[in-house]
């Protein structure tokens, strides 16, 4: 039986639908990440799991128990908010102990639990401080501490790292991953950052406009995106897309025409999933890290626009005839002049193909 089950969840604000029949299952101990652009409904979905938003239609079940309509406090879930939501007038100890006091736990047990959480999160020396005396990372730890003391069945994270700087975000990401490993509790994590999704998740749920686009492990989403949206959303730098036309296909390959390619054509040695008529519009997807400069058999005729050196590697942005800007990654710091012709091939990975509807071919 799935630990968390969303069954046909619909959410409407008045007559405006924002979640369109989302169904999802998560196993116990799984780390599930909801990812998608702003306004896709991921936070709304999370808040419906928590009970902070009413479900218009559909059901939510946690650990085999139907919780649709059950008060948030009775669902045995804890949530870490984007803004941390620490009570500014209470000390760190009181913030962490708040939920335990609401549950009328004995004082000595409250102290024991708070001290344990503080030890795990290394915030023992901060217990007497007020939130305004803490740094962003310390506040985040206190918010997590407040969530873990209640020993919930389900942890919910609503973009907890958005307010942190890049370095701290990386550090806290590792902390959260370790916490999941040590506690083994089911976690649902919302983020718009696909890097957080790729690094933390056991499974990623990609959402767009209130609909699930694809559910799968990070490698599944990276290697086998179901559609153009998922392909473009997952992976950094973003996938390059070239709008081509099908020339022909057979049982083992498909040939596509576009002036950006050497000889005006590209042949992919992999049959499409569905029949493609000659002349049909086909989108070619090329991951920047799968393109290589100076390939023996170049595929693309590119001209360098500009490059960004990132120390260990360089990101190059190039132009191609009748194509949007193509980005690719080169190891080291090669000197590439603006306007220089670039012979680029597909070094590793594969060429992705999508039909006119955006579905993967």
């Amino acid at each position, binding site marked *: 039986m799935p630990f968390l089950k969303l069954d046909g969840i619909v959410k409407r604000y008045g007559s405006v639908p924002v979640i369109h029949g989302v169904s999802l299952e998560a196993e116990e101990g799984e780390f599930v990440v909801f990812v998608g652009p702003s306004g896709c409904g991921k936070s709304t979905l999370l808040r419906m799991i928590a009970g902070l938003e009413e479900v218009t239609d559909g059901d939510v079940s946690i650990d085999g128990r139907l919780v649709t309509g059950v008060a948030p406090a009775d669902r045995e879930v804890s949530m870490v908010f984007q803004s941390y939501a620490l*009570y*500014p007038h209470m000390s760190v100890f009181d913030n962490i102990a708040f939920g335990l006091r*609401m549950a009328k736990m004995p004082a000595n047990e409250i102290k024991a639990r708070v001290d344990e959480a503080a030890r795990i999160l290394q915030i023992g020396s901060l217990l007497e401080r007020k939130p305004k005396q803490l740094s962003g990372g310390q506040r985040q730890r206190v918010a997590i501490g407040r969530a873990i003391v209640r020993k919930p069945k389900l942890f919910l994270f609503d973009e907890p790292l958005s307010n942190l700087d890049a370095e701290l975000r990386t550090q806290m990401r590792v902390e959260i991953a370790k916490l999941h490993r040590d506690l083994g509790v089911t976690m649902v994590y919302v983020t718009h950052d696909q890097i957080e999704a790729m690094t933390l998740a056991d499974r990623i749920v990609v959402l767009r406009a209130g609909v699930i686009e694809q559910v799968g492990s990070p490698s599944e989403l990276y290697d086998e995106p179901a559609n153009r949206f998922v392909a473009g959303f997952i992976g950094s730098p973003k996938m390059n897309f070239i709008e081509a036309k099908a020339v022909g296909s057979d049982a083992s390959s498909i040939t596509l025409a576009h002036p950006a390619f050497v000889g005006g054509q590209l042949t992919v040695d992999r049959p499409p999933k569905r029949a493609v008529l000659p002349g049909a519009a086909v989108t070619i997807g090329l991951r920047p890290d799968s393109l290589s400069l100076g390939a023996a058999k170049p595929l693309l005729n590119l001209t360098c626009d500009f490059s960004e050196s990132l120390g260990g590697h360089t990101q190059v942005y190039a132009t191609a005839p009748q194509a949007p800007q193509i980005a690719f990654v080169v190891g080291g710091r090669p000197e590439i002049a603006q306007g220089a012709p670039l012979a680029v091939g597909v070094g590793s990975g594969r060429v992705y193909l999508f039909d006119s509807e955006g579905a993967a071919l």
Partner: protein
Amino acid sequence: MSSTWRIGSILHAVGLVVVLAFALFPFYWMVTSSLKEQTDLLASPPVWMFKPSFGNYQAIFADRTVMTAVLNSLIVATSTTALSVALGTPAAYALARYEFRGKADLWFWFISNRMISPIVLALPIYLVSRQVGLLNTHLVLILIYLTFNLPIVVWICTDQFRSIPRDLEESARLEGASQFDVFWRIYLPLGVPGVAVSAIFAFIFSWNELLYALVLITSQDLKTAPVVATNFMSGYELPWGKIMATGTVIVLPVTIFAMLVSRHMVRGLTMGATK
């Protein structure tokens, strides 16, 4: 520094000094007059340099009337302030956080209560109070002042509560807090600046109120301080010294109170200005 700018600054400063003098002079005159003997008080032209005397204060403290009046004012002002806060803060919380039919109308009703001129209601309130047997009681003043102070508390506290992030309430609800717990443990502590300011306003309005105290209380033992101050205004020879001393005693507690919490008052005055 251009001469035009300098002249402008000087004129600005002079203007401020004039306005300040205009505002402060009555207080200065009252306090200095309370320290003058009768001959200095009635001197024409007025005496600016004099030997201060506490005789007027001795006279009013010897007379039970003034101190009883101050005690009555204290009872009424404190009670109405406490009641206004006790009733107004939950109402403000509901208006800040709940959505319900008629909310905008209820809000407008609260605020419009403050727009009515008190003198318009003086006679009907007198008649009703007499009918229900509440004339010459502290309770009638407390209830009347409540109707004027409650809108102030609701107005300021609603805005204060609206500024508290919703995340805090949601977090508390997730942790098992009831609606009352959220109000008592989260909103009220965080809303202390607004609550304090509205309590200050309520206390000052109640302490200084004269019209209803004059109309509804005729018993000498129940008169409030502003009414007693006007009691001296009869006869051919007005005891200006005692009048000024009484006025100073009445004004002093509220003035000191306001000076101590003036920082909170300025914050509170701007609370209703922005969303």
